[in-house]
């Protein structure tokens, strides 16, 4: 009897998490559309509800109620499983992400490792979706997704490793508690940058939205999906975005901690602090989307392998030295910032065989000058 | 018949040449002396009428000669004069900035002509278009597959005697 109650409790926990994440995704959709609208000097959604607040709900209802279009050549089984294979991992990592002190479904000692292991799984779903759609664009998109996600997994793990070394733990609770005196963003700006860039590439958002690139492969793996199937992909994408932002906050920006906040208030007010920080990071992601063009796949790969991977190794070595020799924290941050600056300088120099100079000139024939003079 | 008379009169020369064209008109006979050509004018442009067999050699000559240097094909077009099809080449020199019209007549039954794609690559699609709409076949063209019309289209809709099919309104 107790078994049934227990399983029931856990199922309801999972369902609660699902509901909560759905609400978050709806809010994210609204925030993104409004924010992009503001960037682009327009209003964004305004019709459904006050300030278009109910627009995402209307969209969700539309998506579910939509007819499911199915091309006759698709491989039915793989086609149906693929969205789930993308969605379940992205959902499952939330089991261990805390939103405040002790507010977490299950506090795992290997939380970070768990998150990384599960997030890799969604690649299989993308490749499967691309293959099952029996569409050339989808196949191209699937390849792109696989290549991109596998490459960026390495710097991502390495950046996480730096934090784990600092905190001497893979437990997210523990990592946040360790940032009591100073947040890790100050100690490891390099790690923060690597994690953020690799995270953006992992979730495939601008400037790394190469696998669903609308103007090239018309939505990539999702090109044949519609209605409910597509909305599952959509949910997964936004949950992943939220997860990357949340992880950035937890690992580098002090999670729910705020100077001056202490005692029992941490747990309750911490939730607000956490969400505020996370949404700020998400706004940065949306801001990128509003301003950046898209990279090309080979540029993305060379950036990943030639820049981020060596940098992340360097970061780990630095962290190791810092831990071993017991350097003061400020020295570490200075070194980190120096490396960052020199890398920026190097990159801009390297990029500038695509010179930042005007190759366009104004040509004025001589005869005209004479004519105007006379 | 009445229409045909009109058409033939249509190429009656009107002379509004500018300085560059006058110079070109004076220079041309010396350059194309090896070929059977008639030099004429049409409004403000010099017109060279040539034999269809010689079109490619003349075009090559006009392109490679330093005094003419016609390296730019403006327009290749076919005009249907019922009795004959006239292929018109408007060519231009990007360095000397003068324009010339080259014309040649082919028979409407089996119009066939040497392709000028080796001379100007830009003739490619123009020739395919002419093949589509007027049925002029260009020898030695890389591929004369239909460009504007669909595969298996019957007839040559550019010609004046093409009967338009009856379309039903829907």
């Amino acid at each position, binding site marked *: 009897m107790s078994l049934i109650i227990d399983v029931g409790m856990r199922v309801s926990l999972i369902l609660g998490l699902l509901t909560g994440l759905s609400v978050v995704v709806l809010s994210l959709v609204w925030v993104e559309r409004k924010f992009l609208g503001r960037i682009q000097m327009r209003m964004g959604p305004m019709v459904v509800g006050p300030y278009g607040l109910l627009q995402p709900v209307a969209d969700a209802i539309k998506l579910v109620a939509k007819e499911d279009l199915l091309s006759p050549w698709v491989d039915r089984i793989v086609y149906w499983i693929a969205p789930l294979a993308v969605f379940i991992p992205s959902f499952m990592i939330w089991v261990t992400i805390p939103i405040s002190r002790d507010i977490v479904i299950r506090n795992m000692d290997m939380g970070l490792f768990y998150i990384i292991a599960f997030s890799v799984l969604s690649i299989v779903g993308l490749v499967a979706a691309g293959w099952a759609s029996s569409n050339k664009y989808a196949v191209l998109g699937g390849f792109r997704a696989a290549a991109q996600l596998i490459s960026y997994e390495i710097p991502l793990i390495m950046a996480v490793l730096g934090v784990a070394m600092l905190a001497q733990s893979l437990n997210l609770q523990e990592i946040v508690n360790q940032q009591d005196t100073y947040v890790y963003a100050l100690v490891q700006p390099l790690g923060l940058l690597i994690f953020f860039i690799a995270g953006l590439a992992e979730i495939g958002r601008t400037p790394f939205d190469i696998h669903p690139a*609308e103007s090239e492969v018309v939505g990539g793996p999702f090109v044949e999906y519609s209605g409910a199937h597509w909305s599952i992909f959509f949910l997964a994408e936004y949950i992943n975005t939220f997860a990357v932002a949340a992880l950035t906050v937890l690992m580098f920006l002090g999670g729910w901690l705020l100077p001056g906040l202490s005692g029992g208030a941490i747990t309750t007010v911490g939730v607000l602090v956490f969400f505020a920080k996370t949404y700020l990071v998400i706004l940065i992601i949306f801001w990128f989307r509003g301003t950046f063009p898209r990279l090309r796949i080979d540029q993305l790969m060379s950036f990943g392998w030639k820049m981020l991977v060596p940098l992340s190794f360097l970061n780990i070595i630095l962290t190791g030295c810092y831990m071993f020799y017991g350097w003061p924290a400020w020295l570490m941050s200075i070194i980190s910032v120096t490396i960052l600056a020199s890398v920026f300088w190097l990159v801009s120099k390297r990029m500038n065989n695509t010179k930042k100079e005007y190759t366009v000139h104004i040509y004025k024939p001589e005869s005209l000058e004479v004519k105007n003079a006379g | 018949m009445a*229409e045909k008379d009109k058409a033939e009169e249509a190429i009656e020369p009107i002379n509004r040449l500018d300085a560059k064209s006058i110079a070109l008109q004076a220079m041309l006979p010396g350059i194309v002396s090896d070929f059977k050509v008639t030099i004429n004018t049409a409004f403000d442009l010099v017109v060279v009428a040539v034999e269809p067999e010689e079109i490619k050699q003349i075009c090559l000559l006009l392109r490679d000669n330093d005094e003419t240097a016609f390296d730019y094909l403006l327009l290749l077009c076919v005009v249907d004069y019922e009795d004959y099809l006239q292929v018109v080449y408007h060519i231009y020199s990007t360095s000397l900035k003068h324009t010339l019209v080259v014309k040649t007549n082919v028979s409407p039954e089996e119009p066939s002509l040497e392709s000028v794609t080796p001379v100007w690559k830009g003739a490619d699609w123009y020739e395919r278009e002419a093949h589509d709409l007027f049925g002029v076949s260009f020898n030695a063209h890389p591929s004369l597959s239909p460009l504007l019309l669909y595969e298996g289209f019957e007839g040559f809709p550019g010609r004046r005697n093409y009967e338009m099919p009856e379309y039903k309104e829907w």
Partner: protein
Amino acid sequence: MVDQDINKKLDTVQMMVNMGPQHPSTHGVFRMVLAVDGERIVDVEPHIGYLHRGSEKLCEGEIYVQIVTLFDRLDYLSNLNNEMVFCRAVEKLMELEIPERAEYIRVILCELNRVASHLLFIGTFGLDVGAMTPSMYMFRDREKIQSMFEAVTGARMMHNYIRIGGIKNDVPDDFIHRMKSLIVELKKGLEEADKLLSFNEIFLARTKNIGTMSAKMAIEYGVSGPSLRASGVPIDIRKDHPYSIYDRFDFGIPIGEIGDCWDRYYVRLEEVRQSISIMEQALYQLPDGDTITPTRFLLRPPKGEVYVRGENPRGEIGVYMISDGTDKPYRVKVRPPSFCNLMTIKDLLIDTYVADAVVILGSLDIVLGEVDR
């Protein structure tokens, strides 16, 4: 035997990708069949003709006044330039004198049309590269131009405003005032686009040295307009063979050095600046007077043939018109700039990436209505 078979067949597969006619980045109903090896393009087969309406043939059945509307519909982004080149062809054949004021208004509106077309190019090029904001900015500015057109011609597109012998009607009273404030806004909007896109590192990486067209290749293919000038060939009909009153204005020709996508983009951006300068000068010089030389409704130009060239936003448009003395032309043939520019796509695309294909096609700035006619 078996081993051989396996060795032979385990190479990577070449995949045929059919891009278009329904694809967001082919700028209309254009279709390319790409043979790709992974992401690299091995072969291209372009297909056009999905929008073929036989405009040239239609012209043979219409009277001269009606043909202006057909020319409107060739290139739906530069209607006024199209109208102008046809009207000039008829006027040249009839040797018609155009009133000063009409010429000035024509030039102002044509340049405004060029600006609108180039703004649209910048926006959609941004979309091709993956940036969505420039298109919004550019559409905002283009919208102002469209409402200006509406005020002057009565229509946002397909104006039928430039008539044989002049223009349909005089401009509204506050035209100069409105134009001046519009020009100020356009300048501001253009600087925004320049700041947002031109020197973005990613944008540079995506467009620099991509789709390089040498001057020799451009001339061989008969490429014209900004795409030709980006390759470093300073040919502009407005300058080399000035028509209308273009010889009265002081403006430069932007030319590129390399002929890559970035040059083609920036030449257009620079051309907007030059067009704005032409408009400013024309507004300053705008005389009073008649706007149209009255002609008969059923025009009968003398027998003869005429070839007229004009500088469209997309390149050099030419009209070859043969008149047989009746009220309908015997033959009208258009030299479509996009048609020639698009011809180069095969040479440009081979050995690039799929992502580049979209950028290169976008940088050529084609309008399929004009390619297919």
